[in-house]
């Protein structure tokens, strides 16, 4: 067996190169955010700050009202979106997983078809803005991402159908349990792995979403953290010009390092919780993959 193993040193060497390539930009970003502005102007962004400085972060602290507002929006849409999205996905997927449901294949096809064909951006945009008047509302940040085109529903349905024995459901029904009670008391608790996976996917989607904000939101008060970052990327003076915090701002803010500090603040929550959910995330991807 030993002779047939791959050379471990070589394999580790390859992975160390990959790890460096993956982490390199993150380290550059973090280091730049701690660098004195004048050093960035003369030496560029670098891995080791020639002049260490917390100016960028103290500037952002002056802007904390705008920061906290955007964080609030992001946290709010992430929590509501994940919870509601998960709930209506599970409620839709469960009946579809029941083989005895009338019109089951027709209803499944309705879900599946959304994966194959869509109206495109223009009709979707016009329906949300002209028919439902969602421009500049929190709804515009929550509604478009809820079911992510039916793909999650199919994953949950497959999980329900494969891992919850029909006999349990039948005997509970004969014992007089209502369908809602069966769903709530038996199906959901037995399906925690898939629910955790889809929940994580939804959380990441909502946390990272900037597209809905870009097309539906023009009011800075409703900017999520990603939209604030987006404006800062294109327009480095965005915070200064809009004076979102309402406080007096320094005349010459350290804009290059502030930009990088903003990005660090945008990634930080995800990086902090990543080690905790990494295990579920990989397990969830695995479930999705095996079921195709």
């Amino acid at each position: 067996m030993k002779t047939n193993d791959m050379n471990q040193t070589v394999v580790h060497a390859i992975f160390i190169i990959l790890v460096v390539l993956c982490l390199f930009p993150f380290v550059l970003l973090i280091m730049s955010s701690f660098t004195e502005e004048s050093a960035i102007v003369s030496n560029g962004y670098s891995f080791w700050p020639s002049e260490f400085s917390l100016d960028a972060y103290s500037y952002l602290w002056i802007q904390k009202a705008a920061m906290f507002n955007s964080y609030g929006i992001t946290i709010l849409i992430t929590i509501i979106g994940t919870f509601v999205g998960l709930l209506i996905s599970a409620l839709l997927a469960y009946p579809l997983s029941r083989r005895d449901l009338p019109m089951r294949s027709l209803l499944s096809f309705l879900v599946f078809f959304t994966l194959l064909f869509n109206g495109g951006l223009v009709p979707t945009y016009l329906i949300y803005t002209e028919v439902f008047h969602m421009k500049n509302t929190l709804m515009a940040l929550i509604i478009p991402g809820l079911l992510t085109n039916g793909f999650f529903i199919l994953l949950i349905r497959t999980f329900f159908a494969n891992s919850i024995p029909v006999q349990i459901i039948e005997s509970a029904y004969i014992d007089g349990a209502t369908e809602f009670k069966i769903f709530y008391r038996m199906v959901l608790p037995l399906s925690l792995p898939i629910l955790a996976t889809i929940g994580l996917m939804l959380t990441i989607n909502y946390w990272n979403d900037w597209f809905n904000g870009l097309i539906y939101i023009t009011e800075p008060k409703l900017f999520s953290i990603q939209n604030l970052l987006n404006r800062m990327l294109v327009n480095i003076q965005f915070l200064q010009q809009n004076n979102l915090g309402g406080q007096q701002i320094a005349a010459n803010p350290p804009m290059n390092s502030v930009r990088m500090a903003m990005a660090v603040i945008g990634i930080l929550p995800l990086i902090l919780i990543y080690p905790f959910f990494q295990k579920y995330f990989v397990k969830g991807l695995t479930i999705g993959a095996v079921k195709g």
Partner: protein
Amino acid sequence: MVQTGWTPFFKKLKRYRALFLMMVPGIAYLIINNYLPMFGVVIAFKDINYAKGILGSDWVGFKNFEYLFKTADAFIITRNTILYNVSFIILNTGMAITIAILLNEIRSKLMARFYQSVILLPFLISMVIVGYLVLSMLSAESGYLNLNLLPMFGMEPISWYFEPKYWPYILTIVQVWKSTGYLCVIFLAAIIGVDHEYYEAATIDGASKWQQIRTITVPLIAPTITIMTLLAIGRIFYSDFGLFYQVPLNSGPLQPVTDVIDTYVYRGLMTLGDIGMSSAAGLYQSLVGFILVLLSNYIVSRRNKENALF
């Protein structure tokens, strides 16, 4: 007595009314978010006038499509979309399979988990952040490449955001960097699912590691590879909007090499206000995408029914 007609059907509906009730929010959502916009494709055949409303606007037949395909844009965005996607599919799949196979060979479970976590990290961040990361590398005045790396080799600084010729490579590197980790985990899951007895038997027969990979691992994960590739081919007319919009910072001079159908539709709708042409491009994208899914699925199902999507 055998019941006929509608009575048993209604009885069934009554028996299953709770289940139907459960589906109401989800179905309502799909109607609003997916099916109403499908009917909205009529916009592509109309001269939209907000005063008259969507339904009241005048029909113009295929005029919007004529305008679209008369421009040079139609060719450029189609070419870019397809060429980028083809190279993404080939590179991503190749890289992900290789990394997954190597990851499976690592004996230290702790290190394997560490590598996996780090490789998956870029998948988790938003494209806006990726835009920042690329900017810190390429910015003309303060980017790492221009100020630190190129001088080391005695090269002149480059105005990256104004030089189209580099961007096919930059975008490809960024895309592979961001999404290989995800695909790799999926392939790794398939590899772990392979029965160990195959390898034991092969080892006894004296098969080398390379032979085992070629004759056991790759053929046994082929269904997963096929499905992932099929999904990607079905979406070959779509692109990651964030990649092509955020990463080049929407820079005008780069458009000949960074413009894809998605960015074109977005620009037509949001900045140029050319709704007719923009929705024509959108419908062209949806229709060709739809045909490509059906076609690729048909080809796979003819070869092997098991591997097909439907």
